[in-house]
């Protein structure tokens, strides 16, 4: 076991906690081992830290494969079991087309145009928890 001060290993994906929401920013190529570790990190943090939402920012990802698509839907299903919502934000057109062509339309996964919108989406729902899931947020 390494100590707290050890530098993060290669392919480490930072999982940031902002209030009750986890922000995960993926960038560049994503290897299978990285995706696997990410899945474990998110699972542990969600269960340990009473997280209500997870935002996965894909705006820096150019290439995805079927494994990545499965990892995303796995994370969403897992966090739902732990009573948290997952929102995928900022997916690029090329990535969206690839996933659709692969047949991975990821039903059940929530999406947003940008990280900010994803935070709004989760924030609004956390704030208005008693209301229905379809509640629209008000524009100022």
């Amino acid at each position, binding site marked *: 076991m390494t100590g707290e001060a050890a530098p993060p290993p290669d392919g480490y994906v930072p999982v940031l906690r902002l209030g009750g929401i986890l922000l995960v920013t993926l960038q560049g190529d994503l290897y299978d081992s990285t995706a696997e570790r990410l899945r474990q990190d998110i699972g542990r943090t969600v269960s340990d830290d009473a997280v209500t939402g997870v935002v996965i920012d894909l705006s820096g990802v150019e290439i995805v494969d079927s494994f990545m698509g499965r990892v995303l839907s796995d994370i969403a299903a897992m966090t739902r079991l732990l009573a948290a919502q997952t929102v995928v934000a900022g997916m690029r057109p090329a990535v*969206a*087309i690839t996933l*659709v062509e692969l047949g991975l339309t990821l039903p059940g996964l929530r*999406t947003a*145009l940008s990280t900010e919108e994803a935070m709004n989406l989760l924030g609004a729902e956390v704030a208005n928890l008693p209301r229905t899931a379809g509640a629209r947020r008000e524009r100022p």
Partner: protein
Amino acid sequence: MPEQHTAEDRTDPTQEVAGFLRERREQIAQRWADAAVFRTVFTVSRDEAVEAGRAVVEALAAVAASGRIEDLEADGFTVVREQLARTAHARARAGATTGQISAEMEALRPPVTELLLDELSGAPADHVRECTTVLTVLMGTLRLVMLETTTVAGQDLINRQRLEMLEIATPVIKLWEGIVAVPLIGTLDSARSQVVMETLLNAIVEQHARIAILDITGVPTVDSLVAQHLMKTVAAARLMGAECIVSGIRPAIAQTIVHLGIDLSSIQTRASLADALAYALGQQGAHIVPSAGPVVEPR
């Protein structure tokens, strides 16, 4: 020394024809100016037709001089290729078929042959025959060049229009802050639906649109392939975080979709673009309320 002259020419009838064309170009051009192919294109003045005819004769002479009388790519033709293309284009626009243009080009040959026979009167019969054969071959090549330019010009036009259709037919319109629409017109094939999908997704990113409307009012028929393309586009837009609405489904198309057993229940559909816009505005929290009286324009 006429015998020597004839003997020298007999060795190369092609050069003899080249010389003949060069010397008699004025006469030939004058005769061609009355031929249908020149007369109908250069209607403004006869001089213009003569000028065009002269250019063609000179090109033929150059080709004959180079000895490549059967070569469509001979250098001599490059000078007149554009002019021939313009002529062919004008004839085609006037309603002439390829066969008619070909016949009109063939009609250019007899006057030249006549002049050549005049020129060669008194020469040995086999030499005359060789020279007329060369001339016939040369005129045949000219005809082929003419037809080639006709088809190449037509093919270019078709290719250009196909590209233009791909671009023009898929405009992305911003209807409201955060609402974009794509009015689809014409038959959707794979190439076009790919372009539609890409332009729509890029517009979603650029305009930051939460809602995208695919209007298929202008699509004549919807088969399973088109429906599949629509569903793919909707799924891709959803992955990016936008909601996609399909509008403009006419009753006949709705019937077809039901008959084909295509399940579009996962897609938000509306009958008209207006309904889709009203729904989209509602989703944005905006509502259109009719005002009490007519709006007075501020001065």
